[in-house]
């Protein structure tokens, strides 16, 4: 007796998967996607120091912004050799991020509450931009809201 291997199947045919297996491709594409997601997240990790430049009567801008308060503090930044010195009433220092910051904080605390103060930062021509930013950051830390920049003095 021979066993017949020929067998006609009735009903559902066996499902044959034709074509490449897509599952590993999903893994590869997922890795590429994660790469680009991480890449785009590294593009802009920066912070921002905001500023609303006030209008000065007779100045270059006619934009109506904050009015100029009568109480004003002028912070001069001058170069002495390779160091930047901050000069203002009551203080002269090269420690922009430490001594200047604490001085401005104490100055703000000593002010009468509700009295607006206008800060002017007046750097000279050669003062590096990073020192100007440090001074501005100190003013923000001391909670002064109105800070403006003067053009460099004529030499």
């Amino acid at each position, binding site marked *: 007796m021979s066993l017949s291997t020929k067998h006609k199947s009735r009903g559902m045919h066996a499902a044959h998967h034709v074509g490449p297996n897509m599952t590993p491709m999903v893994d590869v594409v997922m890795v590429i996607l994660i790469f680009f997601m991480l890449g785009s997240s590294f593009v802009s990790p920066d912070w921002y*120091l905001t500023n609303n430049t006030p209008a000065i009567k007779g100045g270059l801008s006619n934009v109506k912004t904050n009015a100029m308060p009568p109480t004003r503090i002028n912070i001069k*930044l001058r170069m002495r050799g390779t160091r930047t010195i901050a000069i203002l009433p009551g203080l002269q220092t090269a420690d922009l991020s430490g001594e200047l910051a604490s001085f401005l904080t104490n100055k703000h605390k000593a002010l009468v509450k509700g009295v607006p103060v206008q800060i002017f930062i007046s750097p000279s021509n050669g003062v590096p931009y990073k020192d100007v930013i440090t001074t501005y950051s100190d003013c923000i*830390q001391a909670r002064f809201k109105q800070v403006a920049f003067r053009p460099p003095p004529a030499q």
Partner: protein
Amino acid sequence: MKIRGIKPMQDTHVNVTPLIDIIMCLIIFFLLVGHIAKAASVKGIKIPSAKNGKDMRNKSDLLIINLVPPTGGYGDNAAPTILIWGNQIPDSQLASYLRKQKSGNPKIKVVLRADRSIPYKFVAPVLISCAQARIASIHFMTRRPG
């Protein structure tokens, strides 16, 4: 003798082919985001650090002004280059350029992205140009210290 055949296979797997299309769309999206961000920013600028910077939540209507330091230093009156969206803008035309941008979008916000070593005498004209263009909102791009 009955020979029982193999039962027909039933395909119970999830069809992942449409998922690849969705992921490809996401990849194209992030490629475009990276390309646009790269066009706005310029290499070769080391921005200063600041302890009191804040993350800007609303980054719409931004105009980034890049101040790129000269490659050979500041000798022979070399000045930094002003780049906006990859285009070099001469100092004398910056104010008119900003006025034009402001007229097209009154809500525009200027972000100054300058190298930390640039002397203030090259930064002040940019601030003055912003004032001449009646742009009051100026932001300084910094990085986190450390």
